[in-house]
């Protein structure tokens, strides 16, 4: 059975620290665009931690929600791409074929989560920052869309390793950069086709829900609700 990669994000654990955001930059060669471009809305964060503030002082409540590509099974971004640059893989990933992208940016519109980012200019790495680039991840040029890949380069590498060692991939052995960095382990990644994997069990959790499920895109990331404390919890 092929893998079907999925993720669970636990809002009860997430502290909004954004380790995942920087880890994603480091792993995936995501450029920084600088203050002028950031002010013009061109900052690229495949992973972002949305925060929503409710209430008034002193009864303030803050909600953190890491948002990344939901790797939808019925992804609108795939249907609208005229060149198949955005397409579905056998393992359920929304792949973005950078070389095939011509930059209509239609996928970015169709994505309800706004997790697709466009290279408005050629990325710049002031020397020697370029030495840090991950050789396993292509550097995207001007005019194309990019987004979270669930660290597909790590998936590929892990599959190569288990194939060479003639064994099955162990649950938790493979992690994308965000999940690996997350101090509170709020992000869990794994194979949804394995009913015993942690991510599968969390996907069945009563706390679980999908973000913007009503759009019918069948997202593969389960968000686990933040709980409220009551006396009985701690006993």
């Amino acid at each position: 059975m092929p893998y079907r990669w999925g993720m669970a994000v636990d809002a009860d654990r997430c502290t909004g620290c954004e380790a995942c955001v920087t880890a994603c930059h480091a792993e995936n060669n995501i450029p920084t665009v600088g203050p002028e471009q950031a002010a013009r809305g061109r900052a690229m964060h495949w992973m972002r931690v949305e925060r929503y503030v409710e209430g008034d002082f002193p009864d303030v409540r803050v909600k953190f929600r890491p948002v990344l590509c939901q790797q939808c099974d019925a992804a609108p971004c795939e249907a609208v791409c005229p060149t198949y640059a955005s397409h579905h893989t056998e393992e359920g990933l929304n792949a973005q074929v950078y070389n095939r992208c011509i930059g209509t940016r239609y996928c970015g519109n169709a994505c309800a989560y706004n997790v697709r980012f466009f290279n408005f200019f050629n990325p710049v790495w002031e020397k020697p920052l370029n030495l840090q680039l991950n050789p396993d991840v292509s550097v995207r040029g001007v005019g194309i869309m990019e987004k979270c890949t669930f660290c597909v380069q790590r998936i590929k590498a892990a599959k190569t390793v288990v194939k060479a060692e003639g064994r099955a991939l162990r649950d938790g052995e493979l992690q994308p950069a965000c999940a690996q960095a997350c101090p509170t382990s709020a992000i869990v990644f794994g194979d949804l086709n394995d009913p015993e994997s942690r991510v599968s069990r969390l996907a069945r959790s009563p706390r679980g829900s999908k973000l913007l499920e009503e759009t019918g895109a069948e997202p593969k990331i389960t968000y686990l609700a933040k709980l409220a404390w009551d006396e009985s919890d701690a006993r």
Partner: protein
Amino acid sequence: MNRTLDRSLADDLVRPLFHTSVWFYGLALALGTVVASGLAAWGYQIWNGIGVTGKRWPVFWGFYITNFVFWIGISHAGTLISAILRLVNARWRRPVTRCAEVITVFALMIGAMFPLIHLGRPWLFFWMAPYPSSRDLWPNFRSPLVWDFFAINTYLLGSLLFLVLPMIPDFALVRDRSTGLRRRIYGALALGWQGTTKQWHRLEAAMQIMAIAILPVAVSVHTIVSFDFSMAPVPMWHSTIFGPYFVAGAIFSGIAALIVAMAVLRRALKLEAYLHPMHFENLGKLLLLMSLLWVYFVFAERLTVWYGNEHSEMSVFWTHQTGNYAPLFWTMVACNFLIPFPILALRKLRTIPGVVFASVTVLIGMWLERYLIVVPSLGHKALPYSWGTYGPEPIEIVIMASTFGAMALLYTLFARFVPIISIWEMKVGQHPHRHALPEEDEEAAGLWRVRP
């Protein structure tokens, strides 16, 4: 009597082809400069990247797509109106059809440029086209952009035929009146037109077929353009009303564009004898109808959204109604309804200047409508953290201005090289049965039947 009338008619209408005023060169130069600056701006954009525009995350579409929809809308002026008028055999259409059809062809050409200008990597635009590649890669036929590709090309081809077919007899006329190189060029364009009965019948039949065939194509084109929006799960895009709404809006702006073009031609080429106030009044009435239809659609669209009260749609709704985009929204309503309605509804105001003024406001209003469809929705999707605002950069305005310049330039050149009013159709209008019985009046028919 008839013969002198014919002659003066022909003289009047081919005059611009034989007499070039200084104004023409001046105008062509000025417009050419505007177009060249637009091309230079586009070159700059290709060299540097789309970042030189104001587009941003998450408003990935902006001025270019606005202009795309606007120009495709304008293109509905011509062919659709002329086809309908032909089919219902409205007599007053005769001086109007060609200027209308030309608008279609040029507006389509310009409109179809915008998706290319808009591309992140325009040099790879041909990947949208279906062609056999060594890797068996085809475009994604599920994508509305690929539907656009087919729809626009079909419409462009159809409109071109629809425009060129009735030009053949006029080319022949010009051929017969000229010598040298010009005679050879127009001779080639006339495709050996001799004005035989058989040819006339063929032309009539072809025109009839085209007029019928072009109607569904025209309707489908703007429906498909609307699908670019309504197929995406974006608040206030994802709506079933978009197809007819866009078609109505397209015809609305198209008529307005036609009225403005006719008024300019009338003045510039001194065609007062052919383009009568009656033409403007009739088109004005049509414009009035479309204005009412437009208001109806806007109301129906908004009522549904408001009643539905879905929160991301409501955030777009309110940003239109009372939020950041309210000034643009209410300007649009004023331009498309509040101003043109009284002008067009009251006979006293439905004069040529009145109708032209109303048309200009409609053009502005319809451009704003496209802008308000594209931008606020993208900036207000379901997750408020990712909201954003778009504003154009100078380069987008330059490129937009240059397309208006291109339209004017193409129109000027066209009027310089082709009789802008269909001479033979005017003649047919003067002698309603002539073409059916050409041998009745040998002398008059001689105008058409030329010995090689």
